[in-house]
């Protein structure tokens, strides 16, 4: 238990040490997204299910920031530990694989949620400026549920990828070729209702769609997909990636690069 808490504390301390990357960067990027898409473009967009485009965009950006940061946190922690050699310390010390996985993915949840919160605050500020009211969270419990599950999932994906990776480039490749397209196509910027039925079907195969829409339901009360379905799919995804992370720790390498 103390081993778990120590790794968790270390994860938090680590991202706080690189606060510029972890907190300021998402602040700037969500500010820019909201400015360009939400404010400029939003004026040309119809409101969707009774919410303005700006409001529609906010939970999508929250989830996008969370996913990226959750993935980043665990994967870069492991990869930089591989680089410096102190990942071996974890293998040599009496901590279990489960403790490592939970501590690291909860670290991801904390950083991801922090970024989502910042995005929410920035978005809320834009809302207030444009529409004269703050963004109220429709279903806080659902919102929290999807934030935590998504943070855990992408924390665990980060762990799995980092354990298999043999170079830094493999991590960026994963981000650029898998994570980014899936988030962009998962309904961050557009409701899939606007899409051709064929592309709607394809989109529904994208697991990120359910996380993004789950959070959108939690924040705004609207969603392209059934929330119950979204919750179930998220939990299945969580179980799957937890299993994958366990295999990665058992089979992957703790050795330094």
């Amino acid at each position, binding site marked *: 238990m*103390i081993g778990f808490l*120590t790794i968790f504390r270390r994860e938090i301390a680590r991202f706080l040490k690189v606060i510029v990357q972890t907190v300021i960067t998402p602040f700037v990027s969500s500010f820019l997204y909201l400015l360009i898409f939400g404010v400029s473009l939003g004026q040309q967009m119809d409101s969707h299910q009774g919410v303005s485009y700006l409001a529609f965009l906010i939970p999508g950006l929250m989830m996008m920031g969370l996913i990226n940061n959750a993935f980043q946190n665990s994967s870069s922690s492991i990869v*930089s530990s591989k680089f410096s*050699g*102190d990942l*071996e310390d974890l293998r*040599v010390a009496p901590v279990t694989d489960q403790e490592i996985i939970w501590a690291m993915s909860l670290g991801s949840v904390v950083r991801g949620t922090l970024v989502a919160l910042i995005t929410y605050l920035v978005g809320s500020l834009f809302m207030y400026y444009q529409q004269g009211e703050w963004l109220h969270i429709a279903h806080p419990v659902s919102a929290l549920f999807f934030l935590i599950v998504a943070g855990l999932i992408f924390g665990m994906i980060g762990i799995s990828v980092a354990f298999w990776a043999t170079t830094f480039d493999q991590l960026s490749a994963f981000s650029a070729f898998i994570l980014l397209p899936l988030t962009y196509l998962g309904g961050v910027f557009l409701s899939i209702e606007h899409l051709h039925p064929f592309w709607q079907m394809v989109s529904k195969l994208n697991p990120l769609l359910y996380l993004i829409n789950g959070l959108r339901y939690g924040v705004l009360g609207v969603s392209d997909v059934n929330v119950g379905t979204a919750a179930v799919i998220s939990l299945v995804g969580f179980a799957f990636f937890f299993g994958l992370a366990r295999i990665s720790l058992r089979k992957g390498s703790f050795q330094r690069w």
Partner: protein
Amino acid sequence: MILPLEIHNLVKRYKNSSVDAVKGVSFEVKGAEIFGLLGPNGAGKTTIISAITTLEKPTDGTVKVFGVDVTKDSMFTKKQIGVVHQEVINSGFFDVEEILEFQSGYYGLRKNKERIHFLLSKLALYEHRNKRVKQLSGGMKRRLMIAKALVHNPKLLLLDEPTAGVDIRLREDLWNFVRELRSEGTSVLLTTHYLEEAEQLCDRVGIINLGSVVCVGATKEIVRQYTLRKVRIVFAEQVPVQSPYLMEVIGKDYFFVIPQEKPLGEFINELGVPTQLVRDIQIEEGDLEEAFLKIVSQKDGQVPL
């Protein structure tokens, strides 16, 4: 009697390799002893240590720490072990004291300030405790590795070349510290290429070459067994000497090589030269380095002890 470390028939073949890096090694480390694992580069020392710490899985054979197989109950065995890796770790985010605090936490110790400060001063790192690893010199980094290995007061300490790059004075301090640990009951397995230090420090040594243990025994015993005593006698004048041990005569200097077990007095009596003609006697004892070189240059496997 439970031994701190028992290695039985350990075989390790790395992935993508066609030869065994370790070929059926067996030895043990006894309670409160310093055991030196010596061998040329690539002999398999680090591989053996990795098998003990479970960083590498044995291909065959068993490793037991305090009677427990490391592949069966590694949570138990890991708690008993402290290890200093051969390669220095360069963690970039935290300072020396933070690193030791996290390390303590990995071993289930929440409050460990006292021990940490003790180790910091013992290893001459106290005034550097707020520096990041990259701000430390090579020898300081090495000492930090040692402090890390000791935060939880392990009963079995594994030191893989802990003194590489440490200056001579601190090396001396370090070895004294290791002796202190031994007197408190810690068992130590160390590797080093400084054979002179190994000779002074190690109660027993195992010599390993090309993945096989070629010789294990008490350090003194091995030195005695594998070295010769060189004796130089300076006589007052040239004398006729009949001795099977005579190697060379240069003027009045006579050079002999005699077996270790031969009493010196007996040897001189046998020379049959009146003792008043003896001006000077110099004896050069063999050392571990000599024994080591002899042992590792023998090609035909096991050397009988």
